[in-house]
């Protein structure tokens, strides 16, 4: 099941892109047609997906493409991809420590590798390599442990000496008297970045072509339940919509939505900030992450350095964050890459991430019949987008967890079988 590939684009209708169509529209200034329909909500669907981010749209796509469930609505309170999908630093990797996480993220990475072809839309996946720096003995041991664990799971990850790290990423300062000395690095060459907006648009386009209704500016205000406790539909700002199955894929707002069904979640929502510099010529060939100093950096195709750090320190739903948190990240970046010191920052923003106690996601059914949840991706959800949607669609279609999602059920917080990536994953917390 987990090896099942997304069908090729031939399985759903929709305009394809070509050099000639690009050229023609460039020369004639002919506007591009809408890539997905914007219908009014119907009274009833087979499945409602609450949340039109990458994960929700991917879920809708795989429900239609692989499970034949096409009477699906994706309800988005704002615009699709306007939440965390458009606010992250687009890093993709699968070098997680534990077997369960490695399997799930590797499943996603394998889908990334052929996603543009599968969806007929260029998501600009670029396997430019994700390099994680070790700054002290603890980092060295931890990252080497990751390298070995990953290789046992068939996931590429290799150890680099400081000189090899600098050869792979020339702007990196590896001098021994640096503020954050580089003692080595772990490199996943298949890791990289993708264009986050394109991911949302590609899934929306593919889902829409298969009959999925993508309904924007439609906020869910209540979840209706029948006499037996099962869900029967939702109330929205665009009227009531009935469905026997509801999937909540709402990232930072999951607690708020699940509360409508009377469920409390093991989640806390934190702002996570990112920022971009002014655009410059190509200078940064890969993604560099440093867990110890809380900094991630890569360069977008536009030339901007894309920078992220750790979450803010207190839970909040404000989509911004404190300046001193970004400043902390920038100070570290300037120490690691002295040549970036004169760059000016162009924009900064925050997204609201839902963090679980063990820093692993929650994917599966809930005690409320018909209600499914996909949340808790915390600071690292973008990389999982295709895999998350794929296993969540299978879970909703079957009513029982996909094998890769099974370890990530809600009941792990009762049984104590946590998947503790908190200290292990190279994620700043």
């Amino acid at each position: 099941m987990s090896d099942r590939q997304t069908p090729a684009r031939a399985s759903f209708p929709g305009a394809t892109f070509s050099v000639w169509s690009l050229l023609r529209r460039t020369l004639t200034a002919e506007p591009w047609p809408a890539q997905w329909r914007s219908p009014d909500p119907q009274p009833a669907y087979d499945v409602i997906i609450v949340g039109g981010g990458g994960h929700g749209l991917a879920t809708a796509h795989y429900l239609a493409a692989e499970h034949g469930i096409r009477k699906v609505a994706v309800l988005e309170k704002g615009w699709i991809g306007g939440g965390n999908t458009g606010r992250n630093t687009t890093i993709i990797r699968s070098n997680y420590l534990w077997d369960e996480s490695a399997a799930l993220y590797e499943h996603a990475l394998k889908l990334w590798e052929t996603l543009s072809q599968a969806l007929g839309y260029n998501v600009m996946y670029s396997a430019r390599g994700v390099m994680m720096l070790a700054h002290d003995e603890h980092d060295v041991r931890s990252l080497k442990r990751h390298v070995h664990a990953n290789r046992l799971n068939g996931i590429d990850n290799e150890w680099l000496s400081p000189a090899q790290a600098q050869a792979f990423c020339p702007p990196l300062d590896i001098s021994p008297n640096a503020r954050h000395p580089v003692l080595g690095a772990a490199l996943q060459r298949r890791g990289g970045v993708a264009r986050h907006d394109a991911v949302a648009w590609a899934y929306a386009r593919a889902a829409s072509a298969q009959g999925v209704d993508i309904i924007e500016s439609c906020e869910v205000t209540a979840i209706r339940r029948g006499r037996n406790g099962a869900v029967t539909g939702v109330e929205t700002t665009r009227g009531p919509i009935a469905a026997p199955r509801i999937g909540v894929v709402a990232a930072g707002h999951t607690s708020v939505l699940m509360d409508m069904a009377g469920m409390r979640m093991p989640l806390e929502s934190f702002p996570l900030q990112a920022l971009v510099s002014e655009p410059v010529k190509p200078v940064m060939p890969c993604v560099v992450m440093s867990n110890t100093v809380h900094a991630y950096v890569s360069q977008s195709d536009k030339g901007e350095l894309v920078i992220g750090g750790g979450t803010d320190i207190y839970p909040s739903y404000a989509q911004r964050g404190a300046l001193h948190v970004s400043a902390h990240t920038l100070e570290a970046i300037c120490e690691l890459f002295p040549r970036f010191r004169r760059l000016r920052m162009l924009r900064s923003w925050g997204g609201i991430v839902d963090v679980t106690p063990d820093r692993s996601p929650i994917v599966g059914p809930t005690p409320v019949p018909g209600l499914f949840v996909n949340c808790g991706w915390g600071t690292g959800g973008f990389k999982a987008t295709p895999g998350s949607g794929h296993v969540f669609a299978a879970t909703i279609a079957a009513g029982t967890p996909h094998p890769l999602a099974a370890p990530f059920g809600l009941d792990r917080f009762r049984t104590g079988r946590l998947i503790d990536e908190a200290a292990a994953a190279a994620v700043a917390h």
Partner: protein
Amino acid sequence: MLLIPCPWCGKRPELEFRHAGPAHLVRPADPAAADDDTWAAYLYIRDNPKGRHAERWRHVHGCGRFFNAVRDTVTDRIATTYKPGEAPPA
């Protein structure tokens, strides 16, 4: 950056503080008798409200003491702070 009124030291910048999680979480009185659901609720389940939130802070770079605050998680505005052991304001 927030300006946080420590009940002992007055208004101080956020940098002097550590956030210490939700306030008024009560450990099960008889741990041996508590079942898995009770432990899960105490250890992991959180209100995570969008709006008024009672939470603990510690003035680590000041008096070092814990206190509680009521903060709106949408505006981040702190309505009030109070000493540990005091009931949350209505």
